[in-house]
């Protein structure tokens, strides 16, 4: 089974040379720590930055340089800043190659719910609805089951949706799965030490298993 860092590490392997990538808040943010060293990647932050770098050294924080999570960050050489309309313009125009975000639920046809729980204080969708509606390549990083032990990979989402038919891949503490174009979660890899049976038990939606499922290499 993977911890959060492990999920981030596995997702980092999906990032290819030349990609512009938008990382959501939570586990996706950790992916930046595991980017392969030999490839060229530019991180987009939807508040208006391409070229996001690591957190600043203590004492070098700049109130004008933050990411979409409102954290102080740095700008790498070659960075560009722009306004919020252009930021979502490049997202809508599919210039950003990969979007990685968290989710509360994903359905077997690729719907995602990650912004609202009825009865709880709703904070808002931020940029999530824009990102999932436009990106061609969306990877969800999340736990396979919720705190109550219920599967988050479902036939249909029960929570209010953020977007429909958009998730392409899911990485959890148990597995890597693709969302098939015709519906269903195709099991691609098992996390170290996790059996196919455990994944079947934790998946409420339609699970497609073909042949031997390899253990993931981190």
């Amino acid at each position, binding site marked *: 089974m993977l911890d959060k860092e492990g999920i981030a590490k596995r997702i980092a392997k999906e990032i290819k040379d030349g990609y512009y990538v938008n990382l959501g808040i939570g586990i996706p943010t950790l992916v930046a720590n595991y980017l392969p060293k030999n490839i060229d990647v530019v991180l987009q932050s939807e508040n208006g930055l391409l070229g996001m770098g690591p957190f600043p050294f203590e004492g070098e924080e700049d109130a004008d340089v933050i990411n979409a999570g409102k954290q102080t960050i740095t700008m790498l050489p070659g960075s560009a800043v722009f306004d919020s*309309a252009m930021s979502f313009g490049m997202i809508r125009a599919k210039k950003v190659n990969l979007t990685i975000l968290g989710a509360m639920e994903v359905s077997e046809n690729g719907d995602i719910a990650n912004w609202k729980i009825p009865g709880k204080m709703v904070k808002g969708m931020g940029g999530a609805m824009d990102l999932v509606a436009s990106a061609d390549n969306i990877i969800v990083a999340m736990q396979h089951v919720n705190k109550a032990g219920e599967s988050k990979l479902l036939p249909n989402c029960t929570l209010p949706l953020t977007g429909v038919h958009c998730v392409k891949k899911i990485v959890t503490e148990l597995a890597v799965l693709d969302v098939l174009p015709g519906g269903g979660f195709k099991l691609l890899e098992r996390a170290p030490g996790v059996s196919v049976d455990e994944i079947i038990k934790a998946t409420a939606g339609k699970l497609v298993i073909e042949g031997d499922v390899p253990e993931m290499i981190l």
Partner: protein
Amino acid sequence: MNKVVNGADEAIRDIEDGMTLMVGGFGLCGLPENCIAALVRKGVKELTCISNNAGVDDFGIGLMLKQRQVKKMVSSYVGENAEFERQLLSGELEVELIPQGTLATRCMAAGYGMPAIFTPAGIGTEVAIGKEIRNFNGKDYLMEMAFEADFAIVKAWKGDTMGNLVYRATARNFNAVMAMAGKVTIAEVEELVEPGELDPDHIHTPGIYVHRIFQGEKYEKRIEQRTVRKRV
């Protein structure tokens, strides 16, 4: 074409109860701090605020919420404010949540003179309820209207007396799009300079969009999430 006014109180003098304001910034980054302080002093009420966020309890729009000056917030994310949550749950405050890109682009449309935009954000979700949907090249898009705001209040890094503005780093955010979108746009800047001191090639917001400008008395520029790494 001198747009200079004598400070924040003069700049907001004719903002009245019930008006709609755009307020620039992202979180606490690039906030028009001096105008917000002046609005709190003036005590103007029943405002509708179009702003990506609602500040924190003791800074930004949170200061106006505390004085019960805001009737409605139009935002994409409002998480960081206990007083906001209290007013929302008690029904004192109305909130309209809008996808962040839609929020920005509805401001942009106003500044570009376009009545509406089409965006896929929100298709298949509750955001789409009651809105016109058009299909272009096999994909559905929501029609979203340009915003109308009585005033846009923005903060820039530098500006000249003619209203030309330059922002700094990610403090540009919603400021640059809202600056174009107000019926009246008020810009506060950290440094006010004479015409000719800003390179025309480096202007982000041309002065034609800006009606009033002043240099803010002081800037606290508070940080919401201070994250650092250790020196090795």
